[in-house]
């Protein structure tokens, strides 16, 4: 089941000053993206690194941005995170769908799903897992990280197999 709290996350961040939502779609984040598309606030890029680049340009213009992606795209983005986002201290929010969270997820997701927590840790990218019960606190935490000029990640677990 995809839970409805994802639309709450979108609306709460929008209400609290996040103006741009850029990324590559992920089925885990379907409800979030749907909410954004309905409100015409989503830019779909061709790759995740590109989305980060666009978000950085907007952030340099003092416009708050979120980049959404599947964890496969997070893996694509490692060098962009280290040599652009972290190097220049750009305060972005990453929203990452955690494929491979369940051990019976499709085979292509298993390895990245397993190493994802360690990757985030090694990067020094602070993260929180967003759930139905903590979504508001997680959003507030992320906004607060950005206030300190830090990028951070909100993670949504893939808790179903289709």
């Amino acid at each position, binding site marked *: 089941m995809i839970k409805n709290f994802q639309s709450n996350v979108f609306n709460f961040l929008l209400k609290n000053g996040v103006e741009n939502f850029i990324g590559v779609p992920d089925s885990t984040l379907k409800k979030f993206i749907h909410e954004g598309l309905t409100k015409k606030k989503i830019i779909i890029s061709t790759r995740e*690194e590109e989305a980060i680049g666009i978000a950085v340009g907007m952030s*340099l213009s003092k416009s708050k941005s979120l980049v959404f992606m599947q964890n496969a795209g997070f893996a694509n983005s490692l060098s962009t995170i280290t040599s*652009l986002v972290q190097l220049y201290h750009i305060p972005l929010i990453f929203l990452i769908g955690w494929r491979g969270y369940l051990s019976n997820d499709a085979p292509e997701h298993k390895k990245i799903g397993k190493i994802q927590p360690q990757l985030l840790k090694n990067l020094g990218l602070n993260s929180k897992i967003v759930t139905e019960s903590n979504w508001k606190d997680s959003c507030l935490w992320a906004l607060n990280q950005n206030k300190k000029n830090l990028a951070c990640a909100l993670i949504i677990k893939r808790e179903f197999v289709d």
Partner: protein
Amino acid sequence: MIRKEAMKVVVNEIKNEIIVAANGFISRDLFNVYDKESNFYMIGSMGLASSIGLGVAIKNPKKQIFVFDGDGNILMNFGSLVTIGSIRPKNLIHIVFDNSRHASTGGQPTNSKFIQIEKIAEKCNYSSIFRVQNKQEIIKIMKKIKTISGPIMILIKINHGGKIGDRIENHPTKIKEYFMKNLEET
């Protein structure tokens, strides 16, 4: 004409406008030719100068935003042409200095000599594209683009070579700080 010569001509035409410069020798040449606060030197994240430029252009529709790209850079992020051509910011001018080389890694070849990058930009819905290869043509086109809407691509065919420019002295957080301050105040 080498990159630095071409860049001098371009910069002389655009003066103090905002520039997002690709990593490697593109940023280093710009730093040595005309360092100013409205230059964003992207020293890592190869390929993304045009994406950063797109983000800046969307948020600053009344300002002209120039991207100084290289052939190696844009070949790594061709998808950027798709997104720029879909959003179509009128104020984005995408300049590609094309020497068909990965200059800063030792001059290894890129495949840009087998294709026409600007034609791909045209098919991706850029408003205008130009291909130039000498100083007179650059000056002519730089004057012409003042009267037309973007997104525009100017591909400048250059020769490989020239002295390696000094590295950018400012720390990336300073580059950001100056750039943001300039964007806000101008």
